[in-house]
């Protein structure tokens, strides 16, 4: 009898302690935040919160979403301002998207990431995205779910499956790279057109600053160069290849002239020597274009080569920009 009582006691206590009952019990009395947006005009941070409003008094009324905005010198200050205009507290646990404005400064981006880390209620698997105007994006009417934030999440996952691009833009993936001292990270780039919002490739960030936006086609090549392409469709004008990455290797040379060499092994239907050459030209052309546009390394070659070659890390820790400035890029592709 005692044994049974003890097991029951433990089970009851476990049930009491181990749910997220503390939050859930109150969730029907809170407004659920489905996405957060951030932009800045320098001194102040503008925070946008897409909130799902449910009328608990009238279950017949269907939920509606509304975007609330506030500006303040701190993120928590702006959220407090939003909270002061609501009748109920905000529930941040279901925030699916963190939208970053394109004019975000490195200082504010760092503060946003820190805020999301310390604010336990924001889930670490929320997607981070880049968009020119977060307010405009989040204000769009949702088409397939209760809120735009969940639509955006679905769009990223669906686009990733179709193109083979792994966006790696969930908050914990971005923060892990930043915390490990990696200089480059990418976010899915959204545009707001007449037909509604769409994913328009990748936004490349270096040292927490947006350095360039890439089209969907360029994003494929970018992912091949950075080794993040696994399986998907690459397009070069009218040509289209369904490919699978088999092997990616990086080499460098600094004897006669500086070179970064990418050795690729890809497989796919109709992917012959001619297509290989076409891909090599496409990759080298993207490298040259980004190098001249951005002026420095937009691919994170330093991180890639340092991880593989310890002597590279020792040699170019402080003089990498000189190496990269004079380095040619050679793509060697095999089918």
């Amino acid at each position, binding site marked *: 009898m005692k044994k049974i009582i*003890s097991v029951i006691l*433990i089970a009851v206590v476990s049930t009491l302690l*181990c749910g*997220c009952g*503390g939050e859930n019990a109150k969730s029907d009395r809170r407004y659920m935040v489905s996405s957060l947006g951030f932009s800045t005009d320098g001194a102040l941070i503008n925070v946008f919160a897409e909130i799902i409003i449910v009328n608990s008094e009238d279950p017949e009324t269907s939920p509606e979403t509304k975007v609330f905005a506030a500006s303040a010198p701190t993120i928590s200050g702006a959220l407090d301002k939003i909270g002061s205009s609501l009748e109920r507290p905000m529930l941040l646990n279901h925030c699916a998207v963190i939208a970053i404005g394109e004019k975000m400064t490195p200082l504010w981006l760092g503060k946003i990431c820190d805020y999301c880390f310390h604010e336990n209620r924001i889930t670490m698997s929320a997607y981070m995205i880049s968009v020119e105007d977060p307010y405009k994006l989040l204000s769009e009417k949702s088409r397939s779910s209760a809120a735009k934030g969940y639509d955006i999440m679905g769009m990223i996952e669906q686009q990733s499956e179709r193109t083979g691009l792994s966006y790696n833009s969930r908050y*914990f993936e971005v923060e892990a790279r930043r*915390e490990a001292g990696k200089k480059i990270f990418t976010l899915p780039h959204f545009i707001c057109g007449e037909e509604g919002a769409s994913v328009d490739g990748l936004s490349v960030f270096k040292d927490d600053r947006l350095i360039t936006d890439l089209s969907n086609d360029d994003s494929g090549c970018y992912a091949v160069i950075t080794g993040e392409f696994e399986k998907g469709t690459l397009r070069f004008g009218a040509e289209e290849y369904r490919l699978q990455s088999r092997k990616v290797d990086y080499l460098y040379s600094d004897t006669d002239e500086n070179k970064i060499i990418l050795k690729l092994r890809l497989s796919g239907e109709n992917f012959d020597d001619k297509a290989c050459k076409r891909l090599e030209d496409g990759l080298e052309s993207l490298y040259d274009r980004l190098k001249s546009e951005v002026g420095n390394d937009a691919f994170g070659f330093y991180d890639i080569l340092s991880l593989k070659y*310890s002597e590279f890390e020792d040699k170019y820790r402080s003089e990498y920009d000189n190496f990269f400035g004079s380095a040619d890029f050679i793509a060697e592709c095999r089918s």
Partner: protein
Amino acid sequence: MEKADYGRHFFCLAALFALGESVIGLPYSDSGKYSFLGFAFAVAASFAVLGISYFLLKSKSVFGVKAYSAVLLSAAAVYALYNAVASFTEFLRFVDKILLPDTPRFFIAVIFVLTCAYLTSRKNSVILKLSVIFFVLSAAGIILFFLLSVKDFNTEWFLINRFPGLKAVLKETMPMAARVSLPFALIPFAAEFFINSKSKKYAFTGAAAGLGLLVLCFADCIFLFGPQLSARCDFPLAAAVSTVTVGPLFTRMDGLVYCIYFATALIKTAFCLKICFFSLSKLKICFYPLKTH
């Protein structure tokens, strides 16, 4: 004779003890870039500690010196009490920060203390049998979570371009060894108390099973977050579990991991308190032997 029958139960108890608060706390906040090397050394050190502790305990009967036994039992009692308090306070910190931040600590502390007191005051068989249930649930939960999070793993976090040197590895190993390996010194005392068996089989296999599960939890955190972000998290496994989506949208596994931690914290605290009482009672017998009439 009856005690020897609980060998398999003790296997589960030792495994849960090994998981303890490390299940949710690894890698600790003082870890760095090479925490996985430190952890690997700490795992190896755990078996060494277990072996040394068995040797010291065996020496007690070989030497038969009263002072030696007294020192050993006193050390075990103090260290067990320290571990019980550490496990309890860590659980309270977890409740305060993650589980129920809006609930006053006092209520949680009362529930936890009462449950521990109940477990400690009951016969050994109660905690041993409960360990079996908790161990099965914990092992299933940890393995399931590991399998579900594999798709998000980033192997880059385990790549290093050179061995960082013994000094750097030792720097990572020492704090881990102190919190993961050293408590294993209590297992032989517990084995004597709970199963009174000369066989070391259950203690070693139980410890190995617990460490194996701990490796899965540690690998989860490192593969998902990398060593630096994991170390920055207060409770890395709780953060890691929040990234795993089981079904559409946010059908998550948080509750399962919280249950596992509750079970391991409860068992470890009660286990340590039992060892503390056992050592003190032995200590008493050491100085005031029971008189036979």
